[in-house]
């Protein structure tokens, strides 16, 4: 039991940054991301011996659980009326605003993508996973993954190609 607790603490200490960062890219806000990760880890801990002893890595398991939680109908329902933090809230101060205008545009548009598309894009371009791995995490076929990534990227491309004035009007 002590070993299990120590192993869990070690895992949290070692991987929390990566997990929360991944969750931030999914959810769009640090508070939501920490809540997401904490919720998943709370659920994972009672089965930690099983998870840590399995053939696959515990990190991959928890990352998949975070993705599922992000895509779950419960979280959609509970966070439906919570809008992203505005520029006047302290959370924004924690995340220093990006100077690059293109990055800001991309970030804004990424937040507007449907959840499946967004998860597929983040898994592809942040976690560097291939179609098979993403399909395993999202629980769909590889063709679906390719469609999600392609549509998401098309939307982002259109934002990048959009001139500054048009982007302001779009917002």
């Amino acid at each position, binding site marked *: 039991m002590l070993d299990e607790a120590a192993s869990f603490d070690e*895992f949290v200490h070692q991987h929390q940054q990566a997990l929360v960062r991944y969750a931030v890219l999914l959810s769009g806000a640090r508070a939501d991301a920490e809540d997401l990760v904490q919720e998943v880890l709370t659920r994972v801990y009672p089965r930690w011996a099983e998870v840590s002893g399995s053939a696959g890595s515990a990190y991959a398991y928890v990352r998949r659980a975070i993705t599922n939680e992000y895509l779950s109908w419960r979280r959609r329902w509970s966070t439906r009326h919570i809008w992203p933090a505005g520029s006047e809230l302290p959370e924004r101060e924690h995340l220093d605003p990006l100077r690059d205008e293109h990055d800001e545009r991309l970030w804004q548009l990424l937040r507007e993508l449907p959840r499946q598309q967004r998860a597929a894009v983040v898994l592809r371009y942040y976690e560097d996973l291939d179609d098979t791995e993403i399909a395993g995490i999202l629980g769909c076929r590889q063709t679906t993954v390719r469609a999600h990534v392609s549509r998401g*990227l098309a939307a982002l491309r259109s934002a990048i190609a959009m001139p500054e004035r048009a982007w302001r009007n779009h917002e």
Partner: protein
Amino acid sequence: MSEPEDQLRRMLAARADQVRSNLSGPAIRARARSRSAVRRYAPLAAAAAVLAVLVVSLVLVPRGGSEQQPPAAPVPTMQSPTTLEPTPRTGLTTTVSPTTAPATSPSATLATTRQTTSAAGAAG
């Protein structure tokens, strides 16, 4: 790799690098333990609540069935003449004139006379 994909990778990495998390393993374990205790006793509490509702309904339903209320008395829809009271007018004396309206209308009187005459003719 194309420009938007590069830009996307760079933006995601930059966004992620700005995040600093401060989750702690012991806090998550404590939360998991408290939640598991709640989950352990939740079915017991739910079963107790269902039993309580069952017992209350079994006790109260027969009592409610034995006490039969008498049927409600019919409410009269016509107003009796005794209840009608003329509103008193100050400074005026009520006089009953002999030329008050007859109880029967002239047409009713005519009809009655016709009936009586025809009855008399039939008898004669």
